[in-house]
């Protein structure tokens, strides 16, 4: 049964202090298609939507996650539930909606303080997606979020927004909002913010092709190629400018009626990668270590 409130992961807004480097990375390395036109943001496509990965030239701010809700009633319902539960929120201004290419939006924060934007009617592109290189990109799959207050964050995601827990590895919690095993993963952490942005590619062939491509370009691979145990998703984590963690992913398990009952895996090496890959940067990304 798919979630009534949330529809999909719509976009991520990532602050950058090096717009030129970030833009080059997005096109040359990630293979995304830049969106033409006047904007203070650097906008990129991963699929048939108008913009999904956006870099904002506001270096002091934090990353923001955009989630599309099912309809306008859902947005109003979310506003009411947030108020009731004591989570701060406000409606986005017309300018802010314009900038995001959405009809309406609501800004809130989870318990950890991660910026979450709930949006209605994000703009679709009228043109086919044409990536900058043959990276096999087919979409923005999801994100990993750092959590300093896992219990209350879970309350926010499951009780207020209606996401479902699909599986756990230790206290790492996988959240589902549609037929995919998960779209959002909560990682207990000492800090807040986005952990990674997962970009879906066509097949395992593309994860591997990108693996060797990244190596040749001396992009820092943090972990992988690997395979997530609970979801079967194949991943490759690597860093871009500003040390943002990106992941090329493919092959996530899908369930017609959403995932079955959540299972608990022990938080050890075996559960973090079915193949045996390990995180190579435990300093920057301790959330990926045991």
């Amino acid at each position, binding site marked *: 049964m798919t979630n009534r409130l949330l529809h999909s992961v719509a976009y991520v807004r990532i602050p950058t202090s090096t717009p030129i480097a970030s833009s080059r990375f997005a096109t040359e390395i990630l293979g995304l298609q830049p969106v033409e036109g006047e904007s203070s943001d650097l906008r990129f496509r991963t699929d048939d939507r108008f913009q999904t990965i956006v870099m904002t030239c506001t270096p002091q701010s934090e990353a923001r996650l955009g989630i599309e809700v099912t309809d306008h009633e859902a947005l109003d319902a979310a506003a009411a539930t947030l108020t009731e539960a004591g989570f701060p929120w406000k409606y986005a201004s017309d300018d802010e909606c314009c900038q995001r290419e959405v009809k309406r939006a609501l800004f809130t924060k989870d318990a950890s303080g991660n910026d979450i934007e709930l949006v209605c009617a994000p703009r679709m592109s009228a043109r086919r997606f044409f990536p900058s290189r043959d990276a096999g990109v087919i979409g923005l799959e999801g994100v990993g979020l750092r959590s300093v207050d896992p219990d209350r964050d879970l309350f926010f995601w499951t009780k207020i927004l209606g996401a479902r827990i699909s599986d756990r590895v230790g206290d790492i919690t996988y959240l589902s909002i549609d037929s995919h095993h998960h779209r959002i993963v909560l990682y207990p952490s000492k800090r807040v913010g986005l952990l990674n942005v997962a970009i879906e590619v066509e097949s395992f*062939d593309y994860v*591997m*092709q990108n*693996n*060797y*491509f990244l*190596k040749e370009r001396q992009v820092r691979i943090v972990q992988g*190629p690997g395979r997530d145990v609970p979801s079967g998703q194949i991943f490759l984590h690597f860093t871009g400018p500003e040390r943002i963690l990106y992941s090329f992913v493919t092959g996530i398990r899908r369930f017609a009626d959403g995932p079955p009952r959540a299972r608990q895996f022990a938080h050890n090496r075996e559960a973090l990668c079915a*193949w*045996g890959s390990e995180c190579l940067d435990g300093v920057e990304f301790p959330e990926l270590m045991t």
Partner: protein
Amino acid sequence: MIELRDLTYVRLGTRDLDAAETFATRIIGLQVGERSKDALYLRSDQRAHSLCYFDGDPREQTVGFEVDDEDALMQAAGALEQLQHRVRRGTREEAELRHVHSFIAFDDLSGNHIELVTRPELSGRRYYGSRDAGITGFNHIGLFSKDPVADEKFWTTVCNARVSDRISEIALMRINKIHHTLALVKSDRSGVQHINHQVETVDDVMKSYYLLSKADIPIVFGPGRHPTSGARFLYFQGPDGMVFEYSCGVGEIEDETAHRPRQFGFEPTSFCMWGSKPGQLIPNA
């Protein structure tokens, strides 16, 4: 024409049988079928053995192919002698050591030791690996060739091999539906270039990649994917410098009559479509 039915075994000399056994079991994941003072028989599938290490010179390498019966063996001997190959009939003791009924031995044009065998033994027990490597069986070999064009002619006109694809002069040849059982790699030397065992899934290839890397086993090539056969692979180095391969998803040639071999250029992407480089495995690639 000599009708080869199956690739049966590889026999390798070694000065250290214990090291070979440790590597074959702990690393590759093969099962010991039999071990004596001077020979080690390893299983990878229903066969009694598919790889045999014997106490001897590592340069002594032999490849065995199965033929139908005694008649086929006699005809093969005749055909080979007509072509000036020296053919030796194996003794009863030698046949027992190979777990076959009978065999003849000869050298191909490059000096590779080839044996044609009848009635190779199967085991009553199924194969059970020494570690969870996902091995489904011994699949194919690469052979060094001093003259790939001449060698290809031998395998495809004197024997029943067909070329499935070529990478420059490297012929990938089949003797049944499997894309290739034999690949010829140009070199100044003769001998077995690599030994392939199939594994169940690409997960097995990737798991072995991390396990072997952690165990400091030299990874020679991969993880990668051959554009020719479509197989996902990993090549690694074992005792006496022998290269072993895991792969999964080797394609099949369905239509014998219609298939035409494709030609790939001599460059790294012809060996791996993902971008891994073959290094010394394919000299000068």
